[in-house]
């Protein structure tokens, strides 16, 4: 494996581990004593540290070492994972992610990251020394704030190795980093024991608090080996200071610090926490470098290879359909049997291949725990996330692309949906608001719901804004549902204040477009004072579908089989015409609106005598599609339409039949909507965008 490959593996593994860490931390916040999770967390950080070390990523290694040390103590039960510690660990996790990127890019850390590095190390150190939250800021008050404190005991061989501690002092002085220094010579008391070429120097240093971690690293670079170097980040806690002078009495510590011009003990009393020894070094016993738990036998697969496989399977399906036609034409028994066997196997391969791309949406959902936690803290609202249907599987690409729209919907729910604690109390609601993510299968689609128990959409304001923007005509009457759907129109944010989370008026229409690009639909339900629910529907697979082939005039159309309910013959007499232009039939007592595809797609050939209706359904509504001939089931590979054709109404793709002919795949959701609207009295002409029925 060459170096670049190794780095790529390191990156993807680290990112996976970091994701796992985030999930574990959120879970541990709720159950802080969970041993299994704590161990998994430790193993994750240990692996990142180890791998980083292999590549010589010293910044990463240095930082993760502190985190690992803390987690080691958590493992031993010495430190508990309270909210504050989890918060610091979450921020550390984010920081590690940034460090990984920087190390792989080979770039310098930007000032903000360096600052964060120092701050986090300080906070980790504070937790390690047992400081309570109030003292994490350090033992010194504003007036006597101390910068970096360092003690160095130089190794005996330093001078013989050609180094000179004076160079360090000179460097610190010249760069303005040095605030105070005091040198001690640990020379033996008997002169004849004195070894002149040994280095007997000890230095206590105070370095400017504004110095970055990197500047500190640079300064001490040459002296890290062979010397005992202890550095505390700016404004250290009392315990940290004590740990710098680990083997000295309090009086000695006081004396040494006063030599540096530092008041000790500090004017403001420090922690009453029990004294802890300096942070332990390497943890001796861990489960080895490979941290994966043994129960998961997974394989890392290149996504491109998988796509190629699925493409091939698609071609195989088409070729199979072609041989099918030939076999039928030849009408040879044995051939038909053999071919049917082949087709069965092809179907199985198809299903298996497609399932390779399926991932559980639970992975995406669980990332939202962190989002909800952070945002609710930011907003000062108490909000909990409930997740259901995590085992629901969908295509990998869909899962990746649905993340952003979901994020926007969740943030909207938190920002605008959930009221403040005050408001909720006044309306008798439980103070913690709830945002729910739910996923399930329904008639060939996967449904994802994002709901909240907040104040619901303000329909009046939405209508007002829509009228003001000219989206809705002044006198146009709209149902509540239609008003709610207006939020998907561009430029229609009605949020009182544009918070930095959402509400810039570009949100919901982008969400809708993103979902539509996945061949999905989105709708919204709302009840004043009770909450709002966004419903996303997505097709189960992107590549291959089972379809029902029909002929209209000269053209062939494919209707997705999972949306077909039944087929019926339609005698002329059964047709009824309602209001002008609408068409419906009486289907066993039910009103079934229908569309004549012949008219809709403007077929030239004259309509047949006997027509058939294919009854389809989507999202709880039914419609009939009037076609000429029913041709039976087919398996087809969806070929996306070129950009030119994307705005065509009622069509969602094309396919190549076994015969080599091109058939068009119908967009059933759209057609059902059109039929329903036509029947209700709206314009029967197709609109170029679809909104979905509830």
């Amino acid at each position, binding site marked *: 494996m060459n170096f670049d490959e190794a780095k790529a593996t390191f990156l993807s593994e680290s990112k996976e581990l970091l994701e796992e860490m985030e999930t574990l931390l959120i879970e541990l916040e709720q159950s802080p004593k969970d041993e299994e999770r704590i161990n998994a967390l430790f193993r994750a950080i240990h692996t990142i540290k180890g791998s980083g070390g292999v590549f010589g990523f010293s910044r990463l290694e240095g930082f993760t070492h502190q985190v690992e040390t803390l987690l080691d103590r958590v493992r031993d039960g010495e430190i508990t994972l309270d909210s504050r510690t989890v918060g610091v660990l979450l921020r550390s996790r984010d920081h590690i992610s940034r460090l990984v990127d920087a190390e792989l890019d080979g770039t310098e850390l930007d000032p903000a990251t360096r600052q964060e590095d120092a701050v986090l190390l300080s906070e980790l150190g504070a937790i390690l020394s047992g400081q309570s939250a109030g003292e994490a800021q350090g033992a010194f008050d504003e007036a006597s704030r101390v910068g970096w404190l360092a003690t160095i005991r130089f190794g005996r061989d330093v*001078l*013989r190795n050609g180094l*000179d*501690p*004076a160079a360090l*002092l*000179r460097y610190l*002085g010249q760069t303005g980093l040095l605030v105070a*220094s*005091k*040198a001690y*010579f640990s*020379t033996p008391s008997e*002169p*004849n024991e*004195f070894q*002149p*070429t040994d*280095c*007997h*120097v000890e230095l206590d240093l105070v370095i400017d608090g504004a110095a970055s971690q990197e500047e500190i690293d640079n300064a001490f670079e040459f002296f890290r080996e062979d010397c005992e170097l202890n550095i505390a980040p700016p404004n250290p806690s009392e315990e940290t200071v004590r740990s710098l002078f680990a083997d000295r009495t309090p009086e000695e510590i006081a004396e040494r610090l006063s030599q540096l011009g530092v008041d000790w003990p500090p004017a403001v009393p420090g922690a009453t926490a029990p004294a802890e020894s300096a942070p332990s070094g390497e943890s001796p016993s861990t489960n080895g470098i490979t941290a994966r738990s043994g129960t998961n036998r997974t394989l890392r697969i290149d996504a491109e290879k998988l796509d190629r496989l699925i493409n091939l399977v698609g071609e195989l399906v088409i070729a199979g359909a072609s041989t099918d036609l030939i076999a039928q034409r030849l009408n040879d028994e044995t051939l038909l049997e053999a071919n049917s066997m082949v087709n069965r196997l092809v179907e199985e391969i198809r299903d298996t291949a497609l399932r390779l791309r399926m991932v559980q949406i639970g992975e995406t959902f669980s990332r939202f725990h962190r989002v909800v936690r952070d945002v609710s803290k930011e907003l000062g609202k108490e909000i909990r996330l409930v997740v259901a249907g995590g085992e629901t599987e969908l295509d990998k690409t869909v899962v990746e692309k649905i993340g952003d729209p979901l994020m926007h919907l969740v943030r909207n729910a938190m920002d605008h949906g959930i009221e403040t604690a005050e408001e909720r109390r006044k309306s008798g609601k439980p103070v913690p608001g709830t945002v729910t993510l739910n996923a399930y299968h329904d008639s060939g689609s996967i449904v994802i719901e994002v709901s909240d128990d907040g104040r619901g959409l303000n329909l009046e304001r939405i209508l007002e804004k829509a009228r003001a923007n000219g989206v809705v005509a002044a006198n146009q009457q709209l149902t509540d549902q239609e008003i709610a759907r207006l939020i998907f129109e561009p430029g229609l944010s009605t949020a009182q204040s544009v918070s930095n989370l959402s509400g810039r008026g570009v949100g919901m229409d982008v969400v809708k477009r993103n979902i539509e690009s996945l061949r999905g639909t989105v709708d919204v339900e709302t009840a004043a004072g009770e909450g709002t629910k966004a419903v996303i529907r997505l097709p189960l697979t992107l590549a291959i579908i089972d379809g029902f082939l029909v002929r209209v005039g000269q053209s062939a159309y494919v209707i997705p089989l999972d949306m077909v309910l039944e087929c019926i013959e339609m005698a002329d007499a059964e047709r009824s015409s309602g209001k002008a232009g609408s068409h419906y039939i009486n289907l066993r007592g039910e009103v079934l609106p229908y569309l004549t595809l012949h008219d809709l797609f403007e077929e030239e050939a004259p309509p047949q005598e006997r027509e058939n209706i294919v009854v389809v359904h989507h999202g709880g509504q039914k419609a009939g599609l009037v076609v000429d001939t029913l041709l039976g089931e087919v398996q087809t590979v969806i070929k996306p339409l070129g950009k030119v054709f994307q705005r065509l109404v009622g069509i969602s793709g094309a396919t190549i039949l076994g015969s080599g002919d091109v058939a068009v795949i119908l967009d059933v959701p759209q057609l059902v909507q059109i039929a329903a609207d036509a029947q209700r009295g709206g314009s029967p002409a197709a609109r170029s965008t679809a909104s979905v029925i509830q």
Partner: protein
Amino acid sequence: MDVHQIEKPVGEWTINNAEQIWEQASKGCGLPRRVIDLEKVSDIDTAGIQILALIDHQCRRKGGRLELTNASDSVRSILALYGMDELVKGPTDEL
């Protein structure tokens, strides 16, 4: 005040010759008060500083002290780095 010899070493006081310097300098370690004229000392590094520090320590143990004179600028600066420039007396100071 004891009359004593003013020591006037020549050459550098560095890691390169620290052993020889110490051999010479350690001979005077019985005296409580020592004066070292650094005029001819070209260069001092930490090894040299250590020796001076030890000499000073010995003197103080006997109730005396070490005094340094005629230090060049570079020598003064390294003494200052180690906070030992108080040992240096200027040319006009009384011995």
